């Protein structure tokens, strides 16, 4: 009888508490909600990590293949000792190989920073952007330099058909570029990557290289070789960038899951402590109330 009488007052007391102590003390319900949402986020990041890990193995295989491919293609230019032409009147084209998807740490902004550094040296260079993420970043800082942008990159492991279609569109550009530089993320190991560039030379640069006569290439097919080499380099850059992105996403999601786990622990302890405090408070109030009404 007594306890029932005491309860409504108690309930009123607990319900007024959050208003008083909102800054220092969250209510049980609030903590519970927070805990629930963190658990859900942890579930999501864990799943994304698993997806990224499975994609990573495929991407890495594609990367090692394409790297071999690109290096073999560049071997010609190394043997011929091809060098980019140093001239001020011709423009340089920068191709940025990023992708459409985010949630993978700083790999896109790393590329953008690299491109911005290159733009300081060559302010009138043109940019071709592959992927939405770098497009958004670069269009803010240097939108005037962008001539082409491609979307739909990085949904899956990049194919050679992708690289060829992009190379075609670059070749069809009106401006005559002295040098094409492809900026991509170089895969160092599972933890680290580095924004690097590969050169794709113009016909003139290839024809002027010192050891070029050793290959006995007709002038007529020179253009074809240049287009093909561009597609090769693009393919290499896309595949390696894709592998980097997957590994970066895996790491990012791993860290996110870890942080979520830490937060869950912290909130669980806070939740238990608050619950105990509430129970103790209730008991104290009931006992004091009972003691007071007995006298």
């Amino acid at each position, binding site marked *: 009888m007594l306890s029932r009488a005491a309860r409504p007052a108690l309930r009123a007391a607990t319900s007024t508490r959050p208003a008083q102590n909102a800054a220092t003390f969250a209510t049980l319900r609030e903590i519970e909600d927070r805990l629930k949402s963190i658990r859900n986020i942890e579930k999501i990041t864990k799943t994304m990590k698993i997806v990224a890990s499975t994609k990573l193995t495929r991407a890495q295989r594609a990367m090692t293949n394409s790297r071999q491919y690109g290096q073999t293609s560049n071997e010609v230019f190394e043997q011929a000792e091809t060098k980019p032409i140093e001239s001020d009147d011709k423009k340089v084209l920068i191709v940025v190989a990023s992708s459409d998807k985010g949630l993978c740490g700083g790999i896109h902004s790393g590329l953008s920073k690299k491109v911005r550094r290159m733009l300081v040296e060559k302010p009138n260079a043109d940019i071709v952007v592959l992927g939405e993420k770098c497009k958004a970043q670069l269009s803010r800082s240097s939108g005037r330099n962008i001539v082409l942008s491609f979307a739909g990159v990085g949904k899956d492991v990049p*194919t050679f058909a*992708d690289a060829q279609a992009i190379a075609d569109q670059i070749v069809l550009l009106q401006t005559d570029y002295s040098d094409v530089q492809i900026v991509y993320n170089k895969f160092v190991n599972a933890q680290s990557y580095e924004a690097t560039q590969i050169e794709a030379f113009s016909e003139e640069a290839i024809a002027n290289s010192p050891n070029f006569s050793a290959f006995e290439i007709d002038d007529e097919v020179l253009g074809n070789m240049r287009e*093909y080499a561009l597609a090769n380099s693009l393919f290499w850059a896309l595949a390696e960038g894709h592998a980097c992105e997957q590994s970066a996403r895996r790491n990012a999601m791993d860290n996110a899951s870890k942080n979520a786990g830490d937060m869950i622990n912290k909130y669980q302890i806070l939740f238990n402590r608050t619950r105990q405090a509430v129970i103790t408070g209730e008991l104290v109030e009931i006992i004091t109330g009972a003691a007071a009404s007995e006298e």
Partner: protein
Amino acid sequence: MAFAWKASGLTYNKYLSVAARVVRRSLKDDKRLAAERRGEMELRFAKWNGGKQGENKSLAEANAASMAEAGSHSSS
């Protein structure tokens, strides 16, 4: 021009991709399915002018169109 495909406006890369498609299609069924996935391309692209993005277009169609145009120029 020495090459028929060049005279009809194709680039070397386009020529290669057509040749590759033909090879893929003439494979046996089980191998063909795996190979054809390597030939897929669903990119979209946009031309930029003075810091503004242009219209988003399908890359495959645009490439085909520009090559048809180049072909009609060189043959006429």
